[in-house]
């Protein structure tokens, strides 16, 4: 023990001495870790806060009901279920509810219209009870306004959205009917931001054409009732068009809605951390390389290998801890700033309209701190092993590169990593998250970086034999060949950041290109008409009249609804239109047997529900589970949670619903869109609010949405690139500054200052070029994992690879220039010292 104390002292002294001599190197490494931790934490906190707010909003709409029976589609289910449920043992109270999406002229977004029996709701969902305004206020929540079939109570957000105040008249449109109502009061129990309108259930059924139908029944169980048994009893009496959902399954559903997206952003944020790890690696490698003789001396003096290893690791740990703690503070500030400025939506559109409070998650903070620490220690591990392994006698004598340039670097460890990574890419998703896909990316990256010494050697060896005119270039080539480990260290940072950036860029460009192609195919008509969702749409007579409008060659009516197949999953979109293979980017198909009703399922739906062409499935389209034949799988980017397409005639036959909310118009040759729009408008039934759009507008809108949802992705990627570039700059400048003595020697040998500068620029450029080439190669491989594994597993859609050539070329040029430029600048500084002093300078 006695001998340990001076050793520990020596270790501390050495660490502090190193940092005092090169403070910026340690600080840069710590900052890189801090940025990674901060980004990871901020993204996680923003998403968690938004999700939290989102779930709260969901539970307000549901009025805190413990359990709910919901219709699988917006059409709802037969109200006869209500007395059946109310009589079940263990059910303390039931509240039948009509729930419709409503709108009004000039309204800001849709309002959820809830038809409530206040006498029942009082025992199940009291937060949905209103406060009547005016004279009736004294009578409490179950007062008259609740039964008046002209009265509607509005939440604060709904008052704002509809631009009315209590006492005003309001024409509310839902399920295709517009009803004049009086705003009779407010809904103080409804959470902020929720646009909810409540009226009497009987009035809602009557006025909005829902006689005999309910969309949901809220339930409260008896205290002490066996919840499992009651649920089972409820499940036994449910018809096919209703399903039991609980607060937990709703939470799972809202979680499922955005989980893949959130994990994706988390992973992106971690890339910055990973790049930070490589920065720590290069900083530590340099520090170790320069102190090789120091370490050797310590070994000779009796310090064990283990102690040296521990010391270098401890250096990394201190850097990681400092960076991590700073990162936590930075991340928290960043998250609250983002929430204050942008709200909870990071661009995915999942949390639009949600204004969350920052929810601090100590667990997540700890995880990110530990990740930061592990990254920094991981970055120090290889240099630490190298320091410990060096032969003291050799190291003491040889101050140069520890690696003998004549020995070819080993390639098999990196090949092993690459192989395992490639294998991991073929593993399935875990719980809807492509864990193995992300793992494959990390392994490929590690393998690629580990292969760098070998690749550098392979790429630089031909250069070494090249006879070049200039001494500077010749010197640069020789130097790069002669100091392979230094070259490899610099290359690591370049390769890591380039490959990640290229992988992302290729994925995004492939995605965008595929979406663009897809838009071109699905938006093949000349004009699109859309009636307001709550307006019910066009009845068959109107459809016929509209189709006869002059200038219209063909008018195809379509509509959509939704279907909940599982309580844990977001609803499936149901698109109803006449089947037309030209308008559907088919991936796979099967011919339906005679008599079968065909359904075409979208790629995400096929993925989520395991449907294959040729399969028979049941869908509760018309209240009862009806059999359908899967006639094809089509590419769809618009419904992440799946869509099915039914032929218009089949849908009408099954449901009797011949109303359609939209139409695609093919214009007659020579017809002008404006003229046709005006003619169509003139034929619209009064009171129906209709939008017209041309495909180019829709396409531009869709791509704008796409870019917005990738804005945060771009931002995070840019930060990762900046961290990578900073790493490259720091590594190269540090290496250059460490070569002051070498420059002095060259000057004594007659090499001119400008020749040395040219040599350094060439070295930097060659190094950069090698790194960028390798990085692009690795990035292309990783992009295939993103395109074929991570994206399909997260979002259930596939895409065709499309390379962003311009972007790749410009980033490659920028990286080479940055490497050369940094080397040049650092070289100038190193050369500013007096040549004589430089040679004398010794440690």
């Amino acid at each position: 023990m006695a001998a340990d104390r001076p050793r520990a002292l020596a270790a501390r002294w050495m660490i502090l001495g190193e940092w005092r001599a090169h403070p910026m190197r340690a600080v840069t490494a710590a900052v890189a870790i801090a940025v990674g931790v901060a980004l990871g934490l901020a993204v996680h906190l923003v998403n968690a806060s938004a999700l939290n707010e989102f779930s709260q909003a969901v539970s307000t709409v549901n009025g805190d009901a413990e359990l709910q029976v919901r219709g699988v589609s917006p059409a709802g289910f037969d109200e006869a279920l209500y007395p059946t449920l109310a009589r079940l043992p263990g059910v303390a109270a039931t509240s039948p509810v009509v729930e419709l999406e409503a709108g009004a002229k000039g309204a800001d977004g849709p309002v959820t219209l809830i038809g409530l029996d206040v006498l029942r709701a009082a025992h199940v969902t009291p937060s949905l009870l209103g406060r009547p305004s005016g004279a009736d206020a004294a009578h409490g929540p179950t007062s008259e306004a609740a039964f008046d079939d002209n009265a509607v109570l509005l939440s604060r957000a709904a008052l704002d959205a509809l631009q009315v105040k209590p006492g005003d008249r309001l024409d509310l449109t839902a399920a295709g009917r517009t009803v004049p109502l009086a705003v009779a009061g407010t809904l103080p129990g409804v959470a902020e931001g929720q646009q909810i309108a409540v009226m009497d259930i009987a009035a809602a059924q009557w006025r909005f054409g829902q006689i005999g139908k309910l969309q949901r029944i809220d339930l409260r169980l008896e205290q002490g009732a066996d919840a499992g048994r009651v649920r089972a009893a409820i499940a036994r009496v449910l018809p096919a068009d209703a399903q039991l959902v609980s607060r937990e399954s709703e939470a799972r559903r809202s979680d499922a809605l955005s989980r893949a997206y959130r994990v994706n952003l988390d992973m992106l944020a971690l890339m910055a951390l990973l790049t930070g790890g490589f920065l720590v690696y290069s900083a530590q490698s340099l520090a170790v390389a320069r102190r090789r003789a120091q370490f050797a001396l310590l070994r000779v003096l009796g310090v064990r290998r283990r102690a040296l290893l521990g010391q270098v690791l401890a250096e990394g740990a201190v850097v990681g801890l400092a960076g991590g703690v700073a990162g936590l503070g930075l991340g928290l500030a960043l998250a609250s700033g983002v929430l204050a400025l942008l709200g909870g939506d990071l661009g995915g559109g999942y949390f639009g309209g949600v204004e969350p409070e920052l929810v601090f998650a100590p667990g997540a903070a700890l995880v990110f701190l530990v990740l930061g620490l592990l990254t920094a220690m991981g970055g120090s591990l290889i240099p630490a092993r190298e320091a410990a392994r060096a032969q003291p006698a050799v190291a003491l004598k040889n101050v140069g590169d520890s690696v003998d340039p004549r020995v070819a670097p080993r390639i098999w460890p990196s090949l092993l990593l690459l192989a395992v990574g490639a294998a991991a890419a073929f593993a399935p998703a875990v719980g809807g998250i492509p864990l193995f896909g992300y793992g494959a990316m990390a392994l490929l990256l590690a393998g690629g970086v580990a292969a760098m010494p070998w690749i550098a050697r392979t790429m630089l060896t031909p250069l070494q034999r090249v006879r070049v005119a200039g001494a500077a270039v010749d010197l640069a080539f020789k130097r790069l060949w002669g100091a392979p480990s230094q070259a490899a260290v610099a290359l690591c940072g370049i390769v890591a950041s380039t490959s990640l950036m290229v992988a992302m860029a290729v994925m995004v460009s492939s995605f965008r290109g595929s979406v663009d192609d897809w838009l071109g195919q699905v938006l093949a008509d000349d004009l699109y008409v859309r009636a307001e969702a709550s307006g019910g749409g066009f009845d068959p007579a109107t459809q016929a009249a509209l189709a006869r409008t002059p200038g219209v060659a063909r008018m195809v009516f379509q509509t959509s609804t939704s279907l909940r197949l599982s309580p844990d999953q977001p609803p499936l979109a149901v698109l109803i239109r006449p089947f037309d293979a030209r308008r559907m980017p088919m991936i796979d198909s099967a011919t339906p047997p005679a008599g079968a009703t065909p359904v075409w399922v979208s790629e995400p739906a096929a993925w989520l529900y395991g449907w294959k062409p040729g399969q028979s499935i049941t869908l509760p389209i018309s209240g009862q589970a009806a059999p359908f034949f899967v006639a094809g799988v089509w590419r769809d980017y618009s419904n992440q949670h799946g869509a099915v397409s039914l032929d218009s005639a089949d849908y009408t036959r099954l449901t009797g619903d011949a109303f359609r909310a939209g139409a695609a118009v093919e214009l007659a040759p020579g017809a002008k869109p404006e003229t046709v729009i005006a003619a169509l408008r003139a034929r619209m039934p009064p009171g129906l609010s209709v939008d017209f759009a041309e495909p180019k507008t829709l396409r531009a809108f869709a791509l704008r949405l796409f870019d917005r949802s990738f804005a945060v992705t771009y931002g995070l990627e840019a930060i990762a690139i900046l961290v990578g570039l900073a790493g490259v700059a720091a590594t190269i400048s540090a290496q250059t500054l460490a070569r002051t003595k070498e420059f002095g020697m060259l000057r004594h040998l007659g090499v001119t200052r400008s020749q040395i500068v040219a040599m350094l620029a060439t070295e930097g450029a060659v190094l950069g070029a090698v790194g960028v080439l390798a990085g692009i190669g690795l990035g292309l491989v990783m992009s295939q994992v993103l395109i074929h594994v991570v994206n399909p597993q997260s979002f259930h859609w596939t895409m065709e690879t499309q390379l962003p050539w311009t972007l790749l070329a410009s980033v490659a040029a920028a990286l080479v220039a940055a490497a050369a430029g940094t080397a040049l600048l650092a070289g100038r500084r190193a050369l500013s010292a007096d040549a004589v002093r430089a040679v004398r300078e010794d440690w």
Partner: protein
Amino acid sequence: MGRLFAILAALLVLASPAATQTGPVLPLYPQVRPGRVLTFPADHGAHPEFRTEWWYVTGWLKTEGGQDLGFQVTFFRSRPSVDQANPSAFAAKQILFAHAALSDPKLGKLLHDQRMARAGFGLAEAAVGDANLIIDDWTMRRAADGRFLTKVGGKAFTLDLAFRPTQPPLAQGEGGYSRKGPQPSQASHYYSLPQMVVSGTVTRGGKAVRVTGSAWLDREWSSTLLDPKAVGWDWVGLNLDDGGALMAFQVRDAAGKALWAGGSLRGKDGAVTRFTPDMVRFGAERLWRSPRTGGRYPVERSLSVRLPQGERRWMLKPLFDDQELDSRTAGGPIYWEGAVTTQGGRGYLELTGYVSPMKL
């Protein structure tokens, strides 16, 4: 008797029709007219065309341990003025609600519970033809043997009681036409079943106790009850020890003056004396102030009736003071409904409009 309009008030005001463009089909409420003959068992059942109706049982119970308890079980039916054209099964064309309260002097305050629902789906119904009422798990019906059976209650207590009539129905007013105000239209159809024998169980804290006792059933239905100047009313129904039955009420104005009064005394021999407004006088002997609502109730009263054989005076003493019931959470009023004793009899006293005026 005109009891608990206030509960109805909320619902009826609610029904005040806001003019709609489509022109709602509003209910036509029949007028209460003299000369209608009460027929049974049909009049035990509901009269859904009338605006309001109730089945109102009050009484005294004695437990096996010999303890006195008061109780009230009331089912109300209301026909709000909603659009009759609404085909929805949820249309609030009939609303049912029920109150139950238990007066235990040991507790010193009321235990009470309520149910309220719009009629329909078999979950809440008031049958026509004979008494048969249901609101979820609460029921009151007349069995084949003529007994009224009721099951009501909630977390705090449940009552499972049978009431056996021992006397023929007592038609109040002129053969069941009972005036409530200066206008002939301000009236109700009204009969009582006094001196019913009670048997059953009272359950509290999971413990069921067998009880016996005597009860009073009031049945009333009407479309117009109160004069606009009325702010509240006082009512008392007493089962006299000799088999007689006394009922008296007054409708008060804002100054506390009687706008209208009435009642009846059926002697042990079955002879009925009907009270005209000038015959009845309520006096306040002692006031009790509610610590919760600040309402000041004359919980100890004198009732003077000028009978043909001379004025008689009954002193009414409460089982205990705090028998106030606050039903505002269910959209109802605050009122005092309590078990009282008198010389040679026991019954229930109702005091309304002491916290805020009852409006119709």
